[in-house]
């Protein structure tokens, strides 16, 4: 008798080469993405052992983390160590014949933006990358998760991974997101409620009417940040929207193949009576724009809330976070002046994000004395924003319109904040020092970041009229 299975179990079982023991399986990986900073030691290890890449065609690399984003015609990485990371990646890819999105490739970008936008992510795949935000691909019903460099080497050599099984968690979200809120606000709210380790050890399946109503790009944001609740993966069962997204970008899936793919993808859902180890329910109509006040993504409040007092089990962390962010218990975040606005990252640098930003900025200007940067997630996103007039609108309003990369999300390139600078940011982590030593990060949605850029302060987007039509 077949027991009812979750989508997660189906994905694991359909990729299990061998059961190693009760906790571990040898898991086949369909797509392995690499970047310039977590792969070099893996290639070096492979070469030391005289091992080859087992299955070339399932591997792809991009220069994303250290790349400068200044809008130069030809990009030059001036830092010698970072330049070596990029040239080393190219050397490794050339040596083995691995597909690469190199520094000056027109389609270069953040791995989690370029892989889905060019149709490389397909429902039912297992996708891994030496980057924690690989959970993003759950939006298309693919099991994605981040790995370390030892595991990058393991995948290169074996196209598989020793995989410790995770638990099953389901998060159902019904209702409708109110106007002025996005999947970023939803996931920030969820992380705030279940904590930064609330999903630790589990793969989260998101379901419910509010999830079904999200665009695929909004689902990328949702699944991307599930890792900030400690999740080992995030999934949304692929529906028509996901299938349409993939087929529009995968011209190779046509004719008979298309019918076979559709038949397979229709099986990618949890059985009705499948059991989950943990279940949560949320109502999307409760969601307000959310902004982080602390130094962990779960230190977050609705814009109309107040900063909590340091008490209870989390008292010491709260106190430390307040000391770092220079805030006081009981205060509101609304009206808090910011020095910098950063719109970008694998969380929120897709075309829909930039359209939301443009909507707010239209007819307005970046506040005096504030620096605002927009770093599109990929060359294709940048080109599309330029074609739609978004880029010009942003430049005219006083934004810096940059070239693609991870940029100030983690400040591995020269896009870095000064100590004490306060930043409204569409990224995923507000850790101490993440955007620069002593710099303070407030995570929020693209629209909220745009509002902060034009007012100079953290502002409730729901109280702002849309930008003027002119």
């Amino acid at each position, binding site marked *: 008798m077949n027991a009812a299975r979750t989508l997660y179990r189906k994905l694991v079982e359909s990729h299990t*080469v061998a059961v*190693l*023991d009760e*906790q571990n399986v*040898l898991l*086949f990986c369909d*797509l392995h993405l690499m970047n310039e*900073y977590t792969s070099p*030691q893996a290639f*070096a290890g492979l070469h030391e052992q005289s091992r080859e890449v087992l*299955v070339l*065609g*399932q591997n792809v690399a991009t220069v994303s983390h250290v790349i400068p984003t200044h809008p130069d015609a030809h990009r030059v990485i001036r830092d010698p*160590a*970072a330049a*070596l*990371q990029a040239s080393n990646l190219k050397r490794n890819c050339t040596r083995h014949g691995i*597909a690469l999105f190199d520094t000056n490739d027109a*389609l270069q970008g953040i791995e989690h933006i370029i892989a889905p936008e*060019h149709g*490389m992510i*397909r429902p*039912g795949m297992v996708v891994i990358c*030496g980057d*924690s935000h690989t959970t993003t691909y759950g939006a298309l019903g693919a099991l994605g998760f981040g790995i*370390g460099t*030892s595991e990058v080497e*393991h995948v290169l*050599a*074996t*196209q*598989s991974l*020793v995989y*410790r099984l995770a638990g099953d968690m389901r998060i159902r979200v019904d209702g409708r997101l109110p106007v002025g809120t996005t999947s970023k606000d939803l996931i920030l709210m969820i992380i705030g409620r279940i904590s930064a*380790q609330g999903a*630790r050890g589990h793969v989260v399946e998101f379901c419910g009417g509010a999830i079904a109503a999200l665009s695929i790009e909004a689902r990328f944001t949702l699944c991307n940040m599930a890792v900030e609740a400690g999740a*080992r993966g995030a999934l949304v069962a692929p529906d028509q929207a996901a299938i349409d997204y993939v087929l*529009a970008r995968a011209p190779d*899936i046509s004719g008979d193949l298309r019918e076979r793919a559709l038949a*397979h993808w229709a099986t990618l859902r949890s059985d009705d009576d499948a059991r989950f180890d943990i279940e949560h329910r949320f109502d999307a109509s409760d969601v307000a724009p959310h902004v982080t006040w602390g130094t*962990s993504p779960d230190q977050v409040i609705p814009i109309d809330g107040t900063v909590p007092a340091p008490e209870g089990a*989390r008292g*010491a*962390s709260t106190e*430390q976070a307040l000391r770092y962010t220079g805030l006081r218990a009981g205060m509101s975040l609304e009206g808090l002046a910011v020095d910098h606005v950063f719109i970008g990252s694998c969380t929120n640098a897709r*075309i829909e994000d930039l*359209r939301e930003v*443009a909507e707010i900025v239209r007819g307005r200007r970046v506040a005096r004395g504030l620096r605002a940067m927009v770093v599109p997630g990929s060359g*294709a996103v940048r080109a*599309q924003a330029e074609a739609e*007039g*978004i880029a010009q609108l942003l430049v005219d309003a006083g934004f810096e319109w940059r070239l693609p990369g991870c940029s100030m999300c*983690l400040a*591995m390139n020269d896009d870095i904040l000064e100590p004490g600078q306060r930043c409204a940011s569409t990224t995923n*982590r507000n*850790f*101490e*020092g*993440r955007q620069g*030593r002593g710099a303070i990060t407030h995570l929020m949605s693209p629209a909220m970041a745009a509002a902060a850029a034009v007012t100079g302060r953290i502002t409730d987007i729901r109280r702002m009229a849309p930008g003027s039509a002119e």
Partner: protein
Amino acid sequence: MSDLTHRIEGIAAPLPIANLDTDQIMPKQFLHGIDKKGLARGVLWDLRFTGDGQPRPEFILNRPGYAVTRILLAGPNFGCGSSREHAVWGLQQYGIQAVIASAYGEIFFSNAMNNRLLAVLLPEDQVQALMAESAAAAEPLALAIDVEAMTVASPARTLPFTLGDRHRAMFLKGTDMIGASLEHRDAIEAFARRHWDAQPWVKDVAARTRARLDGVGEAPAPYAASASPR
């Protein structure tokens, strides 16, 4: 292999900070290598040093007696955040051989074990008891971890912990993970053939996509269909 680990003994430094992320364990400015060298310096940089590079005397690892720390007594969710394995390499180069905490960031946990940095899981109240013991002692607390017996011993208590068979073997026998998986090579290749027969659209997806984008096939237009110009 010669570097088998049956026992880890030494000074344990309490770091009672929840969600101590890998950005803090190994900051960005130390991630620009193409090898694993020179990472000891970067460990917990912002906590150990002031903005102008002076040691913070109050930070635990800078206090007298803690220069030879071998074990970290950490808060819950230690190593959350970024997947950077540099955090593990750096801790080891600094001299840390084990961490004791009630929970770890998932990727950090795998990275630690893959490098044989022992990540001991104990219930939070037991971690707190060890921290209290450390705080009450006149000298830095010394602990002994027996990997074979799976116990943590302090002067006051001996605490059992569990370790998966696979991870235990890595410490006691020095298993080469990749070598062990390559013994399944025939099974992997047979699996791949069946998998691609059933789902041909995933075979060579990276190489075929790159070739298509290079103009061998259709031109790329990921947003043309969905664009709504304003």
